[in-house]
């Protein structure tokens, strides 16, 4: 197990360094932030001074090595936009995104497993048809469209929940609902598919012949085997949420890491972009390890 973790850590470190290299040089290709932060009629001198302060005058390669030198001391540099350490800005945004992702994924996993399993129990039955139809629609819906339609209906017309921002519990309802729909649709499909296979297997027939009741058969015997492919998809979906649901966060003015990322990219706030990418990459790396451990708990045949 330790050997496996070490191997994974090395592979991730290599990818992370490659990612830093690529992002550092490619993001600098998108242009000089000076024009975005100084007034149009700023003199060449003040422009030069701005570049000097933010270290943009040095050759790229020098900038890169000084950045890496700071990074080793865990100094991610300062945000140009907010004049505070980039890592503080990112961690604040990430905390919001993490809460949103955790709540949404817990709801998705709990409901999708129940609905998918029950749908698989009577293939072609009325509940199965309804569940399949709605989960397919859910998996097909573009989140930005659902978000703005939901705002028109529930915030503008009915006035039940606020349109955007944060502050009260009510502000969380729409973003969570909108983010819930797609992963829920996808995971119900996967649960249903792998439950059908599991329920048709010989050991379930044996359990039934022994006289085990329906509920334990579905949720104890079959579910454990059916969960393996489900966990892979849950991991993918959770990773997407951890990366920040950019569109949904933008529409609802939610101060998460996704909105931070798109704002920083558009404003050429390079240090924040780099810090955000590293923080989310680390989070996803940790989550993948948890998923691998879950695999071996669910199926003892899987060893590392």
């Amino acid at each position: 197990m330790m050997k496996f973790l070490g191997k994974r850590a090395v592979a991730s470190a290599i990818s992370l360094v490659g990612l830093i290299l690529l992002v550092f040089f490619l993001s600098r290709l998108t242009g000089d932030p000076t024009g975005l932060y100084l007034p149009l009629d700023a003199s060449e001198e003040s422009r030069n001074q701005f570049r000097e302060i933010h270290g943009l005058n040095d050759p790229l390669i020098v900038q890169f090595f000084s950045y890496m030198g700071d990074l080793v001391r865990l100094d991610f540099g300062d945000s140009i936009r907010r004049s505070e350490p980039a890592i503080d800005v990112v961690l604040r945004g990430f905390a919001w995104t993490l809460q949103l992702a955790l709540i949404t994924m817990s709801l998705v996993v709990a409901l999708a497993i129940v609905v998918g399993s029950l749908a698989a129990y009577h293939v072609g039955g009325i509940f199965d048809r309804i569940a399949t139809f709605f989960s397919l629609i859910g998996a097909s819906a573009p989140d930005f469209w659902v978000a703005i339609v939901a705002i028109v209906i529930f915030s503008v017309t009915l006035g039940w929940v606020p349109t955007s921002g944060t502050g009260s519990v009510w502000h969380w309802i729409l973003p969570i609902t909108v983010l819930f729909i797609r992963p829920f649709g996808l995971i119900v499909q996967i649960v249903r598919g792998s439950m059908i296979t599991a329920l048709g297997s010989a050991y379930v027939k044996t359990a039934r012949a022994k006289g085990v009741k329906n509920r334990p058969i579905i949720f104890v015997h079959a579910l454990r085997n059916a969960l393996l492919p489900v966990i892979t998809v849950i991991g993918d979906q959770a990773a997407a949420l951890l990366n920040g649901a950019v569109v949904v966060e933008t529409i609802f003015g939610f101060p998460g890491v996704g909105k931070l990322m798109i704002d920083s990219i558009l404003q050429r706030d390079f240090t924040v972009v780099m810090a955000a990418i590293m923080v989310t990459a680390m989070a996803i790396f940790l989550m993948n390890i948890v998923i691998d451990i879950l695999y071996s708990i669910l199926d003892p045949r899987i060893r590392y």
Partner: protein
Amino acid sequence: MSHSDQTIPDIPDAPNPVLRIVRMLWADKFAFVSALFLLLILFCAVFGPLLLEDVATKQNLRGRNAPPFDFSKHWLFWLGGDALGRPLLARIVVAAQNTIFVAAGAVFFSLLIGTSLGLIAGYTSKTLSQVIMRLADIIMSFPSLLLAVIVLFMLESSVFNLVIVLAITRIPVYLRTARAETLEVRERMFVQAARVMGASTKRIVFRHILPVVFPTLVTIATLDFAFVMLAESSLSFLGIGIQPPEITWGLMVSQGRPYLTTAWWLSFWPGLAIILTTLSLNLLSHWLRTALDPAQRWRLENVGKKNG
């Protein structure tokens, strides 16, 4: 369709493959409707701009935000007009071209490159495989938004550049699947037999491994087509995808957003077009999974004999 199969009774065990597919489609009504709908969208994508380009760009300020379902007007205005009085229906038909071609192009290139790299990673040396897999990891964690902005600023925005951005971000999906399948298939008896008989690497990969791996990849591609469509819509919605005057459905949703409270139809219809297309693709891929799986295919083949 049902009477034409009686005209070939002399060869009952080898029916026409096209006919067989149509009959299997017919067995699943949802998939059948989806296939028809997708054909319609495909028709719009190919011929839409030829037929309706002029109508779709002609402004008419008196008809600004014309409400839908006004059947006294020309049929193109039945879904309403946009902020410049252009008929929404015509614009949706014209926008189908960019929407579909961006998604199709991205899926095609990512399928091609991803599968090739996956076969290489699965069948050749360990070192090369490691390099390719790390590359896939990097692409997976590279934010597609940043990539889109970089391409937008470096290469100027065009339909083709958007295809490149989306294709790059989807390569790992095919790469990982192709590699995983290849690793499994290469240990099977028939591949070993081919190797013992002295078949070249090229022959083993293309004649023996690829045909086994390909159906899985095609199923993934249908699902991915829907995903890429949604991704393109999101990018266009955020303003870093397709730029006006080119249009896609995602861009239309975003253009209608300022008028949301007064003219909901501007954003609603293009969004509905996206949902219906992705839903059809999902239903079709659902069917495809059953049709390509020999253990499940009976569900579609002998519906006539089934009494449920």
